[in-house]
């Protein structure tokens, strides 16, 4: 069946055309490609397609079911929004990397086996990092490198798990792994790196703020959500994840609170939001899994919107820190408005998208009577509102006036934000649109009275807390330590170790060897003289002088002898010596023969 093509392939292959197009055609193409992919999605039939033989295995590029379709839709939509937002960027490389990145994320979603999943997984890591590097400053280069290495680590863990699984079971099929065993733990570890589950999260908050303005929008959408997708498939009902997720939700919020960089704050918020999803996966009920899917869907839309808003600020103001920003609402009201749609969505304000999805997970925890989880998730929810909807806009758009003359961003950016905002509100108002594509049938009703009231309570009282304590939320120009401290400091210590002790140790045998070789070369220049030099030195040391010579004259003689080495190589061997040698040998032979017989 060739009537459809794996959407990931469409994007990836399509990306290769970019360098050949110019100007308007290129821009049109950039927007058209996600649209084509979207159309392609509609032609995809449930079931397994696109099995490709590779190295004796069957790679399944098209495993289609409701779950993968749900992620597929939002990924393609986000690719479109992101590309629209990035339309003004001149560098082909950025677009190329973005499409590769989005395409590989789609590839992961539709992979039916671990090998093809891994293939796309790695493409995602290696293309994503370029979106960071294109910032072209030192911070982004270093952060990108760290991002890459962490992802390579995660990918390797995944690969190890896959290989062990293959050897043990003989199968590469991508299915549930929630049964334990070394292979599944390794795979879980790999997935958790991408999902930024603490303590494997630091790459995210480290790298996303350094990404390009447009790149961060893409990054915020795909990596963690593909991880959520694969966890959903392979580890749903894996209980430990509930606790990881709940802790993660709070952790993200807590760390976000310490941040001075607006995008770093949002990055930690991603961790927090993904925490909900991880917890939902761990619960493994139909409601929670639906909730995870829905939340991933909306999260991509509103987090994209938030990053676009923050990006717009950075793009026009040139600053990215609370301590440097403030009072921008006058010149950037549109941006503020669109940003606030995202902020309200993430805060799960009723009639915004976050409300319809997040509440599913929180409710699921209630259904399962997981009180501590509910408390943690709700705490995180309050914190999220505090941070994203209150603190960030307050210090960026209001607060003290920084005096920055910023204006609204380019129209493509605004359009992208507008589209995202529209979708957020649409989903918030008509949740059925979203609920219809969830993997399981949905009988969940978000808009009940109690639900709305409770949510409003939390939000309002959080706001109260904020206004009471907002001075305490003033940022300092500082960075927060995180797990990355271990490898940032550790790598330096490690490199020191490699460069100094290890290299020295490795050089040692070579050096000894070379010294011996040098000595032999020296000796070889005139062995007989060398031997006599050693002998006379020994005599001098023993006697303090040469026989029949005063000490200082002996010393001088010896010194000169050493200095003149090698001198002329031996020219003559005195005949007398040879004759004596002959006689000695003769005697030795004769006596020896006699003794032996």
């Amino acid at each position: 069946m060739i009537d459809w093509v794996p959407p990931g392939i469409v994007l990836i292959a399509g990306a290769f055309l970019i360098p050949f197009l110019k100007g308007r055609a290129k821009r049109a193409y950039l927007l058209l490609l996600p649209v084509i992919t979207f159309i392609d999605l509609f032609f995809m039939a449930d079931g397994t397609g696109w099995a490709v033989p590779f190295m004796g295995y069957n790679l399944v590029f098209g495993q289609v079911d409701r779950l993968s379709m749900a992620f597929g839709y939002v990924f393609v939509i986000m690719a479109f929004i992101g590309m629209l937002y990035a339309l003004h960027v001149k560098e082909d490389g950025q677009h190329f990397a973005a499409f590769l990145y989005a395409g590989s994320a789609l590839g992961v979603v539709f992979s039916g086996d671990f090998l093809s999943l891994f293939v796309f997984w790695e493409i995602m890591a290696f293309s994503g990092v370029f979106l960071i590097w294109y910032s072209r400053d030192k911070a982004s280069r270093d952060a990108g490198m760290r991002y890459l290495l962490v992802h390579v680590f995660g990918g390797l863990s995944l690969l190890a798990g896959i290989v062990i699984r293959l050897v043990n079971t003989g199968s590469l099929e991508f299915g549930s792994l929630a049964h334990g065993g070394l292979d599944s733990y390794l795979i879980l570890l790999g997935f958790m790196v991408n999902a930024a589950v603490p303590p494997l999260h630091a790459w995210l908050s480290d790298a996303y703020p350094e990404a390009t303005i447009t790149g961060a929008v893409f990054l915020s959408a795909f990596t963690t959500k593909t991880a959520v997708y694969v966890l959903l498939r392979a580890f749903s009902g894996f209980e430990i994840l509930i606790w990881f997720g709940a802790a993660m939700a709070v952790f993200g919020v807590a760390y976000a609170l310490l941040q001075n960089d607006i995008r770093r704050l949002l990055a930690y918020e991603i961790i927090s939001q993904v925490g909900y999803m991880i917890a939902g996966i761990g619960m493994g009920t139909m409601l929670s899994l639906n909730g995870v899917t829905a939340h991933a869907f909306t999260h991509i839309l509103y987090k994209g919107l938030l990053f676009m808003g923050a990006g717009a600020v950075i793009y026009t103001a040139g600053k990215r820190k609370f301590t440097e920003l403030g009072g921008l609402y006058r010149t950037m009201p549109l941006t503020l408005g669109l940003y606030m749609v995202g902020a309200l969505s993430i805060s799960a304000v009723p009639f915004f998208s976050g409300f319809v999805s997040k509440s599913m997970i929180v409710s699921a925890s209630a259904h399962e009577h997981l009180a501590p989880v509910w408390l943690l998730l709700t705490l995180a929810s309050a914190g999220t509102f505090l941070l994203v909807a209150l603190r960030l806009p307050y210090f960026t758009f209001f607060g003290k006036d920084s005096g920055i003359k910023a204006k609204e961003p380019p129209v493509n950016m605004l359009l992208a934000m507008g589209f995202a905002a529209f979708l957020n509100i649409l989903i918030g108002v008509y949740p059925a649109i979203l609920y219809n594509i969830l993997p399981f049938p949905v009988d969940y009703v978000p808009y009940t009275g109690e639900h709305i009231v409770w949510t409003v309570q939390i939000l309002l009282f959080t706001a109260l807390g904020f206004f009471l304590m907002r001075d305490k939320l003033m940022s300092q120009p500082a960075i927060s330590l995180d797990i990355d401290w271990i490898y940032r400091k550790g790598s330096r210590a490690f490199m020191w170790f490699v460069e100094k002790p290890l290299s020295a140790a490795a050089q040692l045998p070579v050096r000894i060897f070379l010294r011996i070789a040098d000595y032999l070369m020296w000796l070889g220049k005139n062995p007989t003289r060398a031997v006599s030099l050693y002998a006379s030195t020994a005599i001098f040391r023993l006697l303090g002088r040469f026989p029949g010579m005063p000490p200082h004259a002996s010393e001088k003689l010896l010194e000169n002898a050493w200095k003149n080495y090698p001198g002329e190589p031996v020219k003559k061997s005195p005949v007398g010596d040879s004759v004596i040698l002959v006689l000695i040998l003769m005697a030795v032979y004769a006596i020896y023969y006699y003794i032996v017989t």
Partner: protein
Amino acid sequence: MIEHFPVLIIAVGLLGAFFTPIIGLIRKELCSPWASLITLLQFLISIFLLYQVLAAGNISYWLGGWQPPWGIEYAIDILNAFVLVLVAGVCFSVSIYAKKSLGFEVPGKELPLYTLYILLSTGMLGIVVTGDIFNLYVFLEIGSLAAYALIAVGDRQSLMASFNYMIMGTISASFILLGIGYLYVMTGTLNMADLSERLPELYGRPVILVALALLVVGLSIKTALFPLHTWLPDAYTHAPSAVSAMLAGTFTKVGIYALIRVMFTVISPEYVIETVPVMNILSWVAAAGIVAGSVLAIAQYDIKRMLAYSSVSQIGYIILGVSMANKLAMTGGILHILSHSLMKVGLFMVAGAIIYRTGIRNIYQLKGMGKKMPFTMAAFVIGALSMIGIPPTIGFASKFYLAWGALEAENWVFVAVILLSSLLTAVYFWRIFENVYFGVHEHEEIKKDEVPLSMLLPILIFAAITLLLGLFASLPIGVIEHWVTGVLP
């Protein structure tokens, strides 16, 4: 006629030497072709003898028709014939090379030179061909005297070198003579075959032991076995290059031939291997010689002197192979006689060629020589690689067998010495390669300036044979193994 070939090879030489002055008086330039002609004849005869031995078995020729114990017997087996071909071949080839080389290095002395040259050649052939131990001594003296004189005509220091050689040579000759004398006193015969029959009854008598010691030491001096090699470097360095080439390729080898002949056919292998540890001691001395010779060669910067020390080392190989006295090692040793001759003659001829063109002897001054004399230096490279033991050269084949023999003897020290010393060899030859081929490109264009064809041709032929025999080493090995199996248990 054919049955007289064993004596003819000597007679041709003696007559040739006799007539050389006469021809020289007619025309000086004719001396060289004459010498070439005589050596060519000897070469052809030796080839024929080899063929005959291989085809029809050993040859025994009674000089003047006298029956052996009383008369002199020329006894030729495979070993003789093999060494004969080698010696005669080298003498012939070098004689062609010598025309220009000697003419350049010692102009105007053709007349005595070629007379001595033929005498030396004949003396050596005589040593090889004879079956009578006293006769062997006589030819040894003929050859030695000729060699002393030939060396003496070299550069300014050659007289001294020749004098040293003469003293050492004379001591050696006296020892050999004394040894032969003791044997004669004990057995009453000088014929080798006869001796080997009568000696076993006398084994264990101290006199035999003394005779053995005298012969070993005497022949060690002749073969320049370390540490009795002291005459050799000076002699080879200061002799005219053609003479160095010839001596390096033949005279020490003939000494080794004599050693093999005396130890393994006159005295029986069992005796020198098991009863008295002659071979055991010799092998350790030889092993020391391999290393010492190489180290000393590394110390040299005069190319001929370096080659001379290299000879000391290589002789160590041969004697080590012979004295390990198992079939493989012996084969290797005898094969190395051949390979060392080929390589060393070639190398000395190249040294002579360089001196002929540039007068340079210091190896560090050879810069650009690779462009100036490409063919000569290419031959040098082949010879040197063969010395190092890089396949596919004949040097590799003999080292292979030597090391194999050491392995067979399960003597790990010898295995290590044989194999690792090739690295030392590499050290002293690589210095030359580096200087000859590298490090000159920034200087002005160097013109090609080859030696005359009469010099180049022998050089190239030796290089070619080194390579070809390396590729087809089975041929000589087959011949040698045939002999070795007959001798060794």
